[in-house]
């Protein structure tokens, strides 16, 4: 006879305030096989768990149901609890009477109680059918792929490498550094951004455990946690970096000048170029779209002047396969394409309407204007600068619904820089709300306001060019009046959006993204750096808009998770995976067609039929690849595919308990 223990949780008033818990215990306790039933205020707390352990011993229980919250939150907790009492951790089932009952039916306690009882009976029916399951172990590769060489990827790579594990740091641009290295100063301390990020770039590149791959992109990911196989495309640089010394003669002599995308079009570079003087690696690449030789076969000046013969016009893209045990995704952000939707700000037709990132380049001493704030149209110093916040953020009509978090602070910084660098200047900031939570953040904003930055609460309805001025029409909602400002330059605080190609990365790596394209963490509060895919972690703005301190913290968090994973020699695998009953499998392989993890293979078996040996094909599950999704069990016509922990028999018992 089965001996089930039933433990119903009040979750304080979360469940107990709606569901009549004692009644649920009493009624569900009558279910056949229940040897012991009780309730407690917080079942997940230490006394609650002890209660379960004690009851298992005292009442000789062989399986347990806990009715409380979602299994996503506490299933692992309670499995460990019953294991402590000597039971197999899989002799356990949870009934979710919080998220799926009390929280959604708080206005109807009577019905909620009935539903809770039904949900508990379901769990009891299932637990009557469960069997012990055992984890198996697989080896793991102690290397990590970090995708993205911005500050998030750099920090994660350094931390993982410092923990003694190998890292491949992948960056699609010719240099690492990302957005941070383009910035001038960082709020609120006004540290020079390059001064604090370039040493990190050097540190990661020189780290003995780090393999740096720049100008390279991820093209394929196979495998699973602990055993990924990734394919990386090394784009042709047309420069052999193993012999190049980075002397720079080639870039000096190259006759082709194009707009620099690194400088956001504010400056120029050559067709053979190093993006900026502190780039890592500090060696050039050739831009094939603009190189005269690659386009027409004539020129080749760089090859003629190169003292080491490093120029190689024959170089081709190369595909490299690497084995890694975990992946950190740190693909960062791009700016919202405001030019496509904000007609009221001129669709990008006015040269002196720029983004905050343009401003950063302009005010940066190593930028295209040597740190002088000059407006793009005529190079004049702007005396009146208007900043517009929330361009694309918090605008459900034209942009995104979310707040981009960093803009209030960087706009305050920009206004401060205008007032500091340009004598007799005016800075006007149109805002909806000021959001400056963070250490010394609000103080920084207040200082800027006291310095004379004019904060105007209201949206801007229109910006237009009138002669050599930009006229900014808006409203001051505190005064209840329309306002009009004549500006020399307008700076837009555009929303952060996932970097271009993030959707493709998500698809390759097998992680999900939210409605805005930011990668989804496993739990918004308790598992913020993990994803729902084992072995894949998130760092930085690819998960959501954030500033540098938050990005760095999250990266270190992701690195800690990776290091914990790689500290083991082998990995326990989830035993709740599919299995095939070969006796009844007809070999139709419908399961193979639906399996999203390519975990089903063909297998030939031989068996004796009427004295003869006959060979036939059956399906077989690769236990390393199977993720236990259950698609195959649904596709199988005869029920040969069965998911351990969710067997056909168990599911039918649950349905019967709920419906009969």
């Amino acid at each position, binding site marked *: 006879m089965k001996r089930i223990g039933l433990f119903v949780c009040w979750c304080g008033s979360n469940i107990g305030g709606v569901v009549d818990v004692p009644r649920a215990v009493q009624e569900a306790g009558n279910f056949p096989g229940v040897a012991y039933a009780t309730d407690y205020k917080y079942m997940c707390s230490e006394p609650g768990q002890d209660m379960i352990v004690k009851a298992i011993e005292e009442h000789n229980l062989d399986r347990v149901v806990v009715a409380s919250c979602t299994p996503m939150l506490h299933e692992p907790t309670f499995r460990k609890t019953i294991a402590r009492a000597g039971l197999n951790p899989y002799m356990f089932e949870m009934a979710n009477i919080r998220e799926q009952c009390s929280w959604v039916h708080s206005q109807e306690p009577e019905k909620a109680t009935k539903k809770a009882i039904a949900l508990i009976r379901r769990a009891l029916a299932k637990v009557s059918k469960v069997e012990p399951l055992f984890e198996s172990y697989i080896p793991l590769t102690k290397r990590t792929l970090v995708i993205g060489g911005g500050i998030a990827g750099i920090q994660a790579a350094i931390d993982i490498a410092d923990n003694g594990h190998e890292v491949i740091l992948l960056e699609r641009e010719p240099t690492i550094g990302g957005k941070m290295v383009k910035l001038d100063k960082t709020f609120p301390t006004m540290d020079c951004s390059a001064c604090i990020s370039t040493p990190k770039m050097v540190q990661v590149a020189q780290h003995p455990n780090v393999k740096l791959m720049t100008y390279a992109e991820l093209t394929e990911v196979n495998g699973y946690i602990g055993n990924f196989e990734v394919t990386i495309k090394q784009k042709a640089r047309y420069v052999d970096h193993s012999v190049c010394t980075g002397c720079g003669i080639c870039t000096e002599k190259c006759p082709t000048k194009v707009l620099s995308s690194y400088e956001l079009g504010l400056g120029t570079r050559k067709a053979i170029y190093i993006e900026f003087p502190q780039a890592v690696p500090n060696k050039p690449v050739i831009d094939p779209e603009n190189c005269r030789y690659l386009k027409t076969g004539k020129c080749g000046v760089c090859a003629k002047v190169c003292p080491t013969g490093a120029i190689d016009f024959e170089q081709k893209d190369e595909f490299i396969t690497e084995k890694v045990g975990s992946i950190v995704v740190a693909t960062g952000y791009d700016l919202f394409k405001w030019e496509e939707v904000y*007609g009221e700000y*001129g669709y990008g037709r006015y040269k002196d309407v720029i983004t905050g990132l343009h401003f950063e380049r302009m005010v940066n001493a190593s930028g295209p204007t040597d740190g002088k704030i000059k407006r793009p149209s005529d190079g004049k110093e702007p005396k009146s600068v208007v900043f517009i916040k929330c361009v694309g953020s918090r605008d459900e009509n034209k942009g995104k619904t979310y707040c981009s978090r960093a803009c209030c602070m960087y706009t305050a910084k920009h206004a401060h820089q205008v007032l500091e660098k340009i004598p007799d200047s005016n800075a006007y900031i149109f805002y909806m709300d000021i959001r400056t939570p963070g250490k010394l953040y609000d103080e920084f904003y207040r200082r800027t306001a006291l310095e004379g930055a004019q904060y105007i609460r209201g949206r801007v309805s*229109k910006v*237009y060019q*009138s002669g050599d001025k930009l*006229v900014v029409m808006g409203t001051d909602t505190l005064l209840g009046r329309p306002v009009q400002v004549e500006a020399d330059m307008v700076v837009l605080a555009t929303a952060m959006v996932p970097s271009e190609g993030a959707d493709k990365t998500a698809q390759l790596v097998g992680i999900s993204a939210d409605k805005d394209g930011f990668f989804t963490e496993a739990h918004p509060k308790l598992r913020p750096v993990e994803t729902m895919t084992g072995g894949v972690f998130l760092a930085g703005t690819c998960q959501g808009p954030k500033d540098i301190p938050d990005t760095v913290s999250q990266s270190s968090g992701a690195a800690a998770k990776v290091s914990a994973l790689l500290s083991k020699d082998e990995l326990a695998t989830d035993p709740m995976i599919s299995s095939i009953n070969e006796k009844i499998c007809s070999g139709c392989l419908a399961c193979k067609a639906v399996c999203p993890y390519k975990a089903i293979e063909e297998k030939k078996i031989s068996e004796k039929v009427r004295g003869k040996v006959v060979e036939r094909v059956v399906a077989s599950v690769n236990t390393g690849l199977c993720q236990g999704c259950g698609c195959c069990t649904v596709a199988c016509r005869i029920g040969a595919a069965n998911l351990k922990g969710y067997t056909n028999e168990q599911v039918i018992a649950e349905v019967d308990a709920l419906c009969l």
Partner: protein
Amino acid sequence: MRYAYYPGCSSDTTGKEYEATVRIVCKNLGIELVDIPDWSCCGATAAHGKSHLLNTALPARNLALAEEMGLDVVTPCAACYQQLATANKEMKENQQIAEKVNQATGKNYQGTIKVKSIVEVIGSLEPDIIKAQMVKPLKGLKIAAYYGCLMVRPPSVTGFDDAENPMFLDNLMRLAGAETMDWPHKTECCGGALQVSNEHIVVKLLDKIYKEALKSGANCMVAACPLCHFNLDGCQSTCNRLLGTTYEIPIFYFTQLLGLAMGLNQQELQFNSHFTDTRKVLKLVG
């Protein structure tokens, strides 16, 4: 190409020359306009402040009449267009209002027709069809095309190319051989509805529009609405009187200029009915 034609109330008063040139130009381009029999006021400028039901019922009656003709409606006036198009959307999407309105009008509007502006109808013709009629290119005209605030807004009702920087009127004028200017106030409000009651507000709005048109290098403006035109053309002198400005910008209907490019004589095009002198700029065309 046949349309139910809704002329609107300014067609035989302040917008006579517009009405006349719309008819000639459409005829030349093969667009047949069939007047809606017994058409009535669309409610523009006044009804929406009074009652939402009234504001929908007035245009809806005309929509029902056009539906009985089995034709889509076209109107030359931006305000009429706005009224008809908004009511059409409302009648199609809001069952409750539709029932009430049908009760009030005594008609049974089914929502089977579309509402178009005359600019939209002409502008959607194949460019070659229009070009074939252009015998006298509008050389020397530097036009600030003025769309007004009603024709392109809100985008969910009107569906023109762009509510912030529309181009369809510019494109038509370019087909006629004129140069059009990139200027910022294409869709700023001219205050047409306040012309009589709030002169001091109107002149400020006009002043902004004139100033930007001239700054862009324009030597004339083009309108596609009898209210805008009456305001821009007729109130220039008021603006000059009250603000001490010296504006003298010829304001044309776009159909007048298309007619001119088609080789029609100035008598037919009725340039002489304008308040602001058009002769100087028309000399440029020859």
